[in-house]
């Protein structure tokens, strides 16, 4: 399976690359492709925050029985973020006299770089990802983690007590919340037996969302709730916005920032919100699948063997569905922010270390034993729907069988025997 999916990924890249190579030459085609990916992702880095900041203004206004922005750019004030952006760029770029100037100026870039790079490994629709990686889920965690360095540096370099307090809180929060975040992500990954986002989502195709990993077993469902909670903390939004805490710390680590550098932090925050929601969608909510099963019915092959018109249309449909699901989760984050009061720092730490951490450990153990227990009791590895492994196609094994016809394919492939999902698939059928 791995072999085939990776083939698919490379073909997807190879198709436009080969086309362009024939047109303009190899080197230029390579740069064009890379430039296109970069442009799209930077566009997303700009568009995501602009849209979500506008949305947040509207959502918070509605919750507080206000109208929010109504004038800039027509009835709904949709150009408000654009106006904000122009205002922020015009502002003077200040640094306090007590600050560590170089560090103060570098810090926002670290935060933005982490948020931006995380978009690289996110697949946006079937077969479309800037950097296909076998360990996407691990990689995205690893890419997001240095963002905290920027916040701590910002807080320290500002030379202000408010900022320092905010940064220290952020550091303490991040160091502890990273563990339940990773564990909650591990639970669905364990069900699938892969770290590759492409593959994780590929297995969630099917009718009525039954194959979505939230519904795969009760532990996944609980892990989804844990993940949502922890992801709120990891994007430092209320009720976990201790690092900024307007009512206590002025603006926390942001206190001394102004103008464009200040807005970089917000670019990063809203992009981070999107990224975290995207991870939740990919790992739990079926990624780009509508949950109606029409995609596999219309196009059973997928984009692996080159793009057809149907595949292309379905890819756009998938993109829309994916972005819609992500936006819904972002709206959920907004609703939570404008509904719940902020926790105290000791409550934040208690929530994480005394509750979320043990809960996620138990969920991990449960998810590991669930298919085995279920198999021994009922003879199947899943309660509803076909076993997850049934949707796996095995061209790798077929390829081997073709290359070495005298040896049975299953015996021949060692990786196959050891793969976690084959334990579920091969064990009980």
């Amino acid at each position: 399976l791995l072999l085939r999916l990776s083939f698919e990924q490379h073909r997807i890249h190879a198709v436009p690359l080969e086309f362009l190579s024939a047109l303009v030459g190899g080197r230029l085609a390579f740069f064009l492709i890379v430039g296109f990916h970069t442009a799209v992702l930077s566009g997303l880095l700009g568009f995501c925050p602009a849209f979500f900041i506008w949305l947040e203004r509207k959502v918070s206004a509605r919750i507080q029985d206000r109208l929010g922005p109504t004038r800039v750019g027509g009835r709904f004030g949709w150009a408000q973020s654009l106006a904000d952006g122009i205002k922020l760029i015009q502002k003077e770029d200040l640094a306090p006299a007590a600050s560590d100037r170089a560090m103060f100026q570098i810090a926002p870039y670290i935060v933005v770089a982490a948020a931006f790079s995380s978009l690289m490994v996110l697949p946006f629709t079937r077969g479309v990802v800037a950097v296909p990686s076998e360990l996407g889920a691990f990689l995205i965690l690893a890419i997001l983690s240095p963002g905290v360095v920027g916040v701590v540096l910002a807080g320290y370099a500002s030379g202000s007590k408010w900022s320092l307090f905010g940064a220290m809180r952020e550091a303490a929060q991040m160091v502890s919340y990273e563990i339940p975040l990773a564990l909650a992500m591990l639970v669905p990954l364990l069900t699938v037996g892969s770290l590759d986002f492409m593959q994780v989502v590929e297995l969630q195709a099917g009718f009525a969302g039954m194959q979505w990993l939230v519904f795969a077993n009760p532990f996944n469902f609980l892990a989804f709730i844990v993940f949502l909670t922890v992801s709120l903390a990891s994007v430092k939004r209320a009720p976990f916005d201790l690092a900024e805490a307007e009512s206590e710390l002025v603006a926390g680590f942001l206190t001394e920032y102004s103008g464009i550098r200040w807005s970089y932090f917000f670019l990063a925050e809203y992009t981070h919100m999107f990224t975290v929601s995207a991870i939740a969608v990919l790992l739990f909510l079926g990624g780009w699948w509508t949950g109606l099963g029409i995609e596999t019915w219309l196009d059973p092959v997928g984009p692996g063997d080159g793009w057809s018109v149907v595949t292309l249309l379905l890819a756009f449909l998938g993109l829309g569905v994916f972005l819609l699901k992500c936006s819904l989760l972002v709206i959920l984050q907004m609703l939570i922010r404008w509904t719940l009061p902020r926790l105290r720092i000791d409550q934040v730490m208690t929530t994480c270390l005394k509750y979320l951490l043990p809960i996620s450990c138990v969920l991990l153990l449960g998810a590991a034993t669930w298919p085995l227990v279920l198999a021994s009791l009922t003879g199947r590895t899943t309660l509803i729907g076909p076993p997850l492994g049934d949707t796996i196609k095995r061209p790798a094994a077929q390829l081997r069988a073709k290359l070495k016809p005298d040896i049975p394919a299953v015996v021949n492939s060692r990786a196959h025997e050891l793969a976690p999902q084959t334990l579920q698939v091969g064990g009980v059928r």
Partner: protein
Amino acid sequence: MGSLQIEAILFYILASIAVGGALAVVLSQHVVRMAAGLVVCLGAVAGLFMLLHADFLGAAQLMIYVGGTIVILIFGVMLTSGALVGRVNASPGEMLGALGLGGLFFALMVFTVGAVDWEAVAARQPISPRDADLALDRLQTSETSNDNQAQAKADRAQTLAERSAGRSTRPLGISLLGMRHETDKLAGGKVTAGTGYLLPFEIISMHLLVVLIGAAYLARAKQKVKPNEQLTMTGGYSHGH
């Protein structure tokens, strides 16, 4: 080819960033700046790993070392927060010792790098991931592959494709469980089960757990110091071993 040149350019960029970060660590006298330099250096090294298609190693480098540096940063800030400029002034003796240690380490590195037969290494990984995949594709499409030579070719192409495309996670996971890919290859493809990397990994994590518990105990015992309690602490520590 073009891709090789691009890789070379990327290598030089990342390498110079890493060296710049390392120089910032050594030359700066400011704890926080040192930590920031360390982050830059370690991040660039992670980039180098990625460039060498060792993406698991790269991700782990980012996760563990950059994360670890955050902790250093926090300690740096907390321990020097009295005066916001925590300067580190080394005495001449310390400088001499550091120079000596650095020189020894440099000699060790030179010796280690010199001991590797780079020509053989370069010959072992000659192709880019794309070429490897193309080779695999060609093998896949060619139907006439029944003889041993073709099998060996297919295996080699697959290994190369896996290695060059950075698909190191699966072999790593399997090695962790005791099936060592590379030793099996040397033994003529025979599958042998051993302890793999799991046992050393567990031993290390047990040590870390012991250290963690010890640190937590030390931090707690500071409040109410009793000599017997400290004795129990050391007892617990050695017992953990």
